């Protein structure tokens, strides 16, 4: 059979009509991912050189670590992409169980590691792990397995849906206990999005989703700092040097950036004005230095990654691989929701919440998890196209 090069880039809608050899990798997704990783390295370097020199005494402190995380991420993605998806789906319940144990461990004083007043980390030697991050993947894999099995049945009792929703609520509760409302919200939004795309009866997915949102909101308001953040979010300029500090500084960065930005490396807000400039507020630094053009580009790339994931999911579904499809939907939703959430916070559309910008901002756990997710996506596409 003659090999035509352009066939590599053609996405077959139905494997039945794919007479050409299947493309091994989803190149557009790979390119978009690598673009985000590269942009992250540049921006982390720009945002952290001055602060790292001031705080750590080594300008490349954060940059070097970020590069190491990115390299580990690429490795993790390669591993995820080379193992059969069925393996992950099979062990998903176990992973979920282990993740829940870790989440519970974090809550035990003496084991959980506290940073900035929140106990969200486990410390193993010099490494710290935030269990809520891998939990995102565990939930996606577990739900994908659950939805995949469900589609094989003719009739699924509502009872089994409710059991799954109950499990989600339990996991959410554990993360809420770490005061990590942002991660909880992202996780629940992703999970219910998967249930919705998975054809779950509306009464099962929309009802609990609304209830979860209401419950999360009520719980969050119990904590004074959340309320304070919410209030300052509505008008950060009422107290620009107190509760509105982060938001006003982020907005100033965006305002300074204008349409075309002040130029890469020329930003001022990263110089100790913006807290977490290389981390949760990296997008604001990007907006200041690259301007509106950069903002639109980043949003577009994230949207593209998400749409690509949904496309991969559709292919997989069409190929009769529901588990892979649900994994792809889940990861697409996770990346997009978290990215838009982070960008919304940076631009002052959403209340401040400690969420990293996937693939771009500094942070080991998030980097490994998101890269693994992309690896799984590539695996889904690969398995679909190989028809195995």
């Amino acid at each position, binding site marked *: 059979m003659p090999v035509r090069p352009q066939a590599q880039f053609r996405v077959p809608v139905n494997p039945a009509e794919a007479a050409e050899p299947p493309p091994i990798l989803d190149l557009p997704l790979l390119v978009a991912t690598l673009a985000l990783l590269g942009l992250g390295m540049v921006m982390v370097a720009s945002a952290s050189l001055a602060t790292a020199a001031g*705080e750590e005494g080594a300008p490349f402190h954060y940059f070097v670590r970020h590069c190491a995380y990115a390299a580990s991420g690429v490795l993790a993605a390669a591993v995820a992409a080379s193992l059969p998806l069925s393996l992950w789906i099979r062990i998903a319940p176990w992973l979920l169980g282990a993740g829940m144990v870790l989440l519970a461990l974090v809550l035990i004083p003496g084991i959980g590691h506290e940073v900035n007043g929140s106990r969200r980390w486990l410390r193993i030697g010099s490494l710290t792990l935030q269990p809520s991050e891998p939990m995102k993947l565990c939930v996606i894999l577990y739900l994908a397995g659950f939805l995949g099995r469900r589609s094989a049945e003719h009739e699924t009792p509502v009872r089994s849906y409710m059991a799954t929703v109950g499990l989600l609520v339990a996991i959410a509760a554990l993360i809420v206990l770490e005061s990590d409302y942002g991660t909880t919200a992202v996780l629940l939004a992703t999970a219910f999005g998967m249930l919705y795309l*998975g054809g*779950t009866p509306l009464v099962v997915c929309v009802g609990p989703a609304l209830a979860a949102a209401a419950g999360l909101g009520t719980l969050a308001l119990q904590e004074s700092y959340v309320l304070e953040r919410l209030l300052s979010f509505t008008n950060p300029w009422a107290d620009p040097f107190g509760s509105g500090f982060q938001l006003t500084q982020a907005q100033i960065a965006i*305002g300074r950036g*204008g349409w075309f930005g002040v130029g890469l490396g020329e930003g*001022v807000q990263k110089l100790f004005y913006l807290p977490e400039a290389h981390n949760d507020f990296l997008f604001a630094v990007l907006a200041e230095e690259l301007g509106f053009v950069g903002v639109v580009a980043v949003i577009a790339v994230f949207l593209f990654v998400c749409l690509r994931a*949904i496309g991969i999911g*559709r292919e997989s579904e069409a190929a009769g691989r*529901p588990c892979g499809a649900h994994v792809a939907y889940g990861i697409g*939703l996770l990346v997009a929701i978290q990215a838009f959430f982070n960008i919304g916070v940076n631009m002052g559309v959403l209340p401040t919440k400690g969420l990293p910008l996937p693939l771009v901002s500094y942070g080991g756990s998030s980097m490994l998890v998101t890269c693994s997710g992309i690896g799984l996506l590539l695996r889904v596409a690969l398995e679909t196209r190989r028809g195995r």
Partner: protein
Amino acid sequence: MSGGSRSSALRAPGRRYLAVSMLMASALTLVGWAVYLNLNHGAFLQEQGEARHLREAAIPAHRGKILDRNGQPLAISAPVFSVWADPTVFVEWSGGGDPDKKIDALAEFLELDPAALREKVLSRSDREFLYLRRQLTPAHAERVRALAVPGVGLRREDRRYYPLGEAASHVIGFAGMDEEGQEGVELALEARLAGHPGSERVLRDNRGRVVERVERLEAPRPGEDIVLSIDAQIQHIAYQALLDGVKEHRAHAGSAVVLDVRSGEVLAMVNQPSYNPNRRTRPAGGRLRNRAITDVFEPGSTIKPFIVAAALESGQFNVGTVVDTTPGTFRVGRHTVRDVRNYGVIDVAQVVVVSSNIGATKLALAIDPELTWSRLSRVGFGTGSASGFPGEAQGVLNHFSGWRQTEHVTLSYGYGVSVTALQLARAYAVIANGGLLPRVSFVRVDRPDDWLRVMSEPVARQMRHVLEAVVAPGGTGRRAGVPGYRIGGKTGTSRKIIGGRYADDRYISLFAGIAPMSHPRLAIVVMVDDPSGEHYYGGRVAAPVFSRIAQGALRVLAVAPDDHVVVTRRVHLRSEGPDSPLKVSAASGALP
């Protein structure tokens, strides 16, 4: 593919379309918000940013140098670094695990106790700026910088250095930590020396560090360099000579002044005890005083040339007129004046040469008190030098209308009147330059202005001959001589007043002189306060110091030797007696 195994999204694509639509709507919302922020709030946000980033900062202006008359630096500013800490950052950082070693190292470099350093920072943890150590040398500062302790920074400053150290400390004075003049010339000429800082708009990071200089608002104006009248070499020579003299005679203090008699410039002014102005610790008041200008003493016999000059100017006497000092004591009212021994009948010149108290008394009593007073007053007794030097004393010369007889008598051999070393030097400069009162200056004088004549030229010339005889071999001031030069001068030894009474064994030892006699250039006064060694006569203690200073100064100024021919001295010496301190009779123990 059987229908039963079909997935839901494919079966119901509406859900997927809805999800995709929502994601796209979210993305569009974010983009729209970015447009809205830029369009509606861009200017406001940029303004807010500038309000936070831009500050007006001072541009330091360098303080002027102080130079000696030949341009050699006496006070210069050199860069140093002050170590500061931002306690808000430092405390947070040091709260972790590892930093202990760094804090210990920092404390060691700063020569502070680690616990004290911690305490210092902790106790001010509410502030954002705190000096840990001021003014380290650049090399020292580099070691601190290398530690890179978070929240600890360096600030470049200027610090004054005084190359002559303690040799010139009293004249130059010193400037404080922030380069503000506090003593001496540094204080007196503060307005000219001080730089006027400029200002600029700077971009700062949120820790106050300047990231970028945006625009200059006002240029800094550096201070003026000031050229003093001081000659660093003569200053150094004078300091060493005085120090040796004070040490040798275990004296309490001492001063020496070298005046250029033709320009009124102070070429050197030194004191003991002194201090090193480069040291951080400020000395006690006694060391700080520029005694040559702030402390007065009774001039003793060094006043006699001016009494004799007044007598000569009265027309009643000439240098050859004889005075009978027999038998060595002379009773005036209840007061007895004594000479060291009976000098017999001597001429007016001899009164100065042998330093006869009786002779001086008789001359003074013979002439109009007003004349004595006015002649002393005109050469500067009782009036400040107007040098502008901080803390200058005026000295005391009571008006003749209030003189009691005792006062009139004691004045003639230098009691009941007080002067500073500078005043005495100025008075001797009058004799040296032919009768003109110099305007004393601490800055270099390029063209001296006209001075007031306060002594007739012939009298001044006659007095120079008299003074030269004092230093001639066998005279009381012979130890003031300098080989190769003709020197003139007068010794003096005055008793100190301790607790309101003249003490029996505490003296001020003086020598005031002129060099060289052929073309007088210098007037030099040496005062040694309370020598406690074997000797206390001015001729033994102060004259050798004078000799060393004069010799050095003449060499530095390249003054040609004028004693290579044998000079016929017009005043012939008949006796060689030590200089005579006042002997007070018991009845008049409590002189003013």
